[in-house]
């Protein structure tokens, strides 16, 4: 139980975010209006994705040093969770864009960068499923995973800042500066980032444990 404190923290923070995110005052801004509250839900998806993908890279590197099926499973399930968070992020961003920018999708560098990065990770899943040999699959997808992360992060966070962009935090602006100035929003935004990130790690852990159980059962049957 002592090892699970962070899951309890995640539950508490997420419930707090759901309540405070809707009730606490936010700045009155034209066009954004109440949709500014999406910041507490859309942006933490990307934070969660980034951290859980970073964990996936960590497991992949460890796998390449000491190849065990467990590390491969953890890398794979973390990457899958990250991809899920990323797609939720894209979907929420698209809805938000429709009602503030007027279109489901714009050819904005930030949006297209994120879409390309998600495709790179989609290819990771395709690559994994194309091997029959387990060790080959684990090794090659670990290597691909590291390169995918190294390619995706500039697409998310660096390239969009080098050009003009509608998206806040891109086009040379320091991220979230517009909203972060408001201390009321910080009160919800930071807990939201921590809560959703912990949830991503929780989901990845649950998925890994199911796969590990499957592996153990399989090994038992063979023995």
């Amino acid at each position: 139980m002592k090892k699970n404190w962070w899951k309890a923290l995640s539950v508490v923070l997420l419930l707090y975010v759901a309540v405070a995110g809707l009730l606490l005052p936010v700045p009155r801004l034209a066009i954004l209006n109440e949709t500014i509250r999406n910041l507490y839900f859309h942006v933490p998806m990307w934070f969660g994705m980034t951290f859980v993908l970073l964990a996936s890279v960590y497991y992949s590197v460890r796998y390449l040093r000491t190849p065990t099926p467990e590390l491969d499973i953890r890398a794979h399930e973390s990457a899958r969770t990250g991809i899920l968070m990323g797609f939720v992020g894209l979907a929420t961003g698209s809805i938000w864009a429709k009602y503030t920018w007027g279109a489901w999708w714009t050819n904005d560098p930030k949006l297209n960068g994120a879409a390309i990065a998600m495709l790179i990770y989609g290819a990771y899943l395709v690559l994994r499923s194309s091997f029959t040999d387990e060790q080959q699959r684990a090794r090659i997808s670990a290597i691909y995973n590291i390169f995918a992360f190294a390619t995706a992060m500039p697409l998310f966070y660096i390239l969009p800042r080098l050009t003009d962009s509608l998206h806040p935090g891109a086009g040379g602006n320091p991220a979230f500066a517009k909203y972060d100035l408001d201390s009321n929003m910080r009160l919800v935004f930071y807990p939201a980032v921590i809560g959703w990130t912990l949830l991503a790690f929780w989901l990845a852990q649950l998925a890994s444990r199911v796969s590990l159980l499957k592996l153990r059962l399989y090994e038992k049957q063979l023995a």
Partner: protein
Amino acid sequence: MKNSLRKLRPVVTLLLALVLPVLEVVAQPATQPEMADALRQSGKIYVVVAVIAVVLAGLLFFLVSLDRKLTRLEKEVKE
């Protein structure tokens, strides 16, 4: 008559300079960005918050029980 009007001109200008900004402040609510103030005033927002909180709590409870089931299974497989 014309002279007195001319004398009044700076007074009127000063008066306008003082009153116009006040008028703008008074008119502010109309020009401020629209927010869901009515939803908040009627208190119906709390209904929405309660529903979202219950849904989220349900989902998180499901996760917790799934976590526990997995822990039990892991112990079983270890034995």
